[in-house]
């Protein structure tokens, strides 16, 4: 069943969104496209209009002017007077506060959308219960669930309405860190097992890093930049939001195999190679690694006698100013960009300029690989 759904989505399908809305103290002016299937993160500070935009996509909020189209299906086009009501848009919505129906048990909550589905089923209750581990919760009342369980049920309920698009509005924001960690793997599973396009709203970059394939950056109601996650990871406006210490290139690499002597997994990144702790992956699997700029050491000669396991050869493409008297050095390692933060003094002493060949060093201990 899952395979059939995947096949049905193959091709140059796309979610297109454009919306304008004027309010007293706030203007929404957003536009983005997502190749499907994929997960686009709407990322930005709290209050920048992410939820407003998602509500326009769902049809729960009217836009002054706007267009929402999924593949060939136009859901909203104010110019042509098209405005499909939310109940017929086939858009699943996972709310921040889960919004489970308190008078229904978990199983009845799950079946609510399933009974009213307006398309042939591509997931059934068994599959959803299996993907989200809902089996033991079926007979519970909703107020007996933990925060993480509530969100898993909300996700399952939305999926069973057989949506063509899934909106997730800060689904983990009301959970503490450990609960968040409990739900995140399920989101990764959905992305990998179901070929359903998702819009994922978040102001937490760690979640985005784990779940998204694309990123739309929002600021004060406007979409100011968008692209795939790797290229967006080094965008200066993201740096301004998440802080200099959290900035780093997100690179998707391919597993080459296990290093027999060290027991580490070798991942190809650009034309270099990283060694990471990640057991049990077959060669060819894709892994996502974030190389935090503050963790990268730059050398102008091939380094020797160091404990560092990762040594990527590349070329400096630019040198930018950063906070605290430091520079951000953009380095091209065979087509993949990474960024290192070094002090201005180091930049001067090493003579770092665009075009200079360098070696970027990073400790294995500071790399956190994620499946994609």
């Amino acid at each position, binding site marked *: 069943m899952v395979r059939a759904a995947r096949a049905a989505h193959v091709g140059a399908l796309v979610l297109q969104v454009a919306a304008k809305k004027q309010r007293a103290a706030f203007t929404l002016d957003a536009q983005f496209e997502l190749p499907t299937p994929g997960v686009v993160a709407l990322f930005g500070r709290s209050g920048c209009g992410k939820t407003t935009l998602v509500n326009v996509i769902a049809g729960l909020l009217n836009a002054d002017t706007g267009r929402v189209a999924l593949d060939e299906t136009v859901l909203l086009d104010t110019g042509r007077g098209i405005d499909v009501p939310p109940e017929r848009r086939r858009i699943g919505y996972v709310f921040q506060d889960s919004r489970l129906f308190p008078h229904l048990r978990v199983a009845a909550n799950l079946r609510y959308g399933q009974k009213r589905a307006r398309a042939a089923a591509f997931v059934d209750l068994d599959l959803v219960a299996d993907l989200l581990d809902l089996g033991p919760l079926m007979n519970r009342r909703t107020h007996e669930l933990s925060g993480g369980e509530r969100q898993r049920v909300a996700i399952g309920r939305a999926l069973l*309405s057989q949506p063509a698009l899934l909106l997730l509005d800060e689904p983990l924001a009301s959970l503490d860190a450990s609960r968040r960690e409990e739900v995140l793997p399920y989101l990764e599973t959905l992305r990998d097992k179901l070929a359903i396009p998702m819009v994922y709203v978040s102001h937490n970059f760690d979640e985005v890093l784990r779940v998204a394939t694309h990123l739309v950056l929002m600021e004060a109601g406007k979409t100011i930049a968008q692209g795939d996650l790797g290229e967006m990871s080094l965008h200066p406006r993201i740096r301004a939001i998440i802080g200099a210490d959290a900035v780093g290139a997100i690179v998707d690499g391919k597993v080459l195999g296990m290093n027999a002597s060290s027991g580490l997994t070798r991942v190809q990144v650009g034309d270099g190679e990283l060694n990471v702790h990640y057991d049990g992956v077959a060669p060819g699997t894709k892994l996502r690694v974030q190389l935090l700029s503050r963790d990268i050491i730059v050398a102008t000669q091939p380094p020797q006698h160091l404990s560092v396991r990762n040594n990527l050869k590349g070329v400096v493409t630019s040198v930018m100013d950063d906070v605290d008297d430091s520079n951000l050095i953009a380095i091209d390692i065979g087509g993949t960009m990474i960024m290192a933060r070094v002090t201005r003094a180091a930049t001067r002493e090493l003579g770092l300029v665009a075009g200079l060949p360098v070696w970027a060093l990073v400790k294995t201990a500071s790399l956190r690989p994620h499946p994609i």
Partner: protein
Amino acid sequence: MMWLSASESEALTLSLSVASRSVLFSLPFAIMLAWVLTRRQFVGRTVLDAFVHLPLVLPPVVVGYVLLLLFGARGPIGGWLERAFGIELIFTRNGAALATAVMSFPLMVRAMRISLENVDRGLEDAARTLGAGAIDRFASITLPLMLPGVLAGAITAFSAALGEFGAVITFVSNIPGETRTLPLALYTALQTPGGDAAAARLAIISCILGLGGLLLSEWFARRVRRMLGR
């Protein structure tokens, strides 16, 4: 009911019958009005709201009089009802039910509005994204969630209907076995020489019914709250 006379137990069963009819008849209208007054913004909403509450502040005799004018045999609505459906209201228990329904209507609407205001509209939005249209949403989400108010309203209105005097006696008079409900029977007993004991018995029954209604309403509300985990 061994200790009640035939006419007293007749008044009791008649009261229960009138109050049940009254509640069943007004329930759908009250739900509709509660919804309209809570969820819709329209010109004249305040006026409609005031109109619904009017029986609370008017002397019941005035309500009975207005009903006589409208629903009497020669009244515009009463005449039509009789010609079209053969329904007679004046001097009948259905007429008594109408009078008590009008009098207890504001109590019913009030209780429902309070619980409807507490229904999270976000849940209705969620139902919407799950494919539920307007009527479906109301039936599957809104109505079950406002059920505590519906039940509380129905029970309060039932209790009030048992006790309605002025509007009933004005509109449908005091006919034994047809419109002589508990309060009317009590009043009649008081007017009759030697009717003191009967009046006392009827008063005690009224107290028991009223108290029972209030306790029942509270029990229902608690049960539903527990079911919803509040």
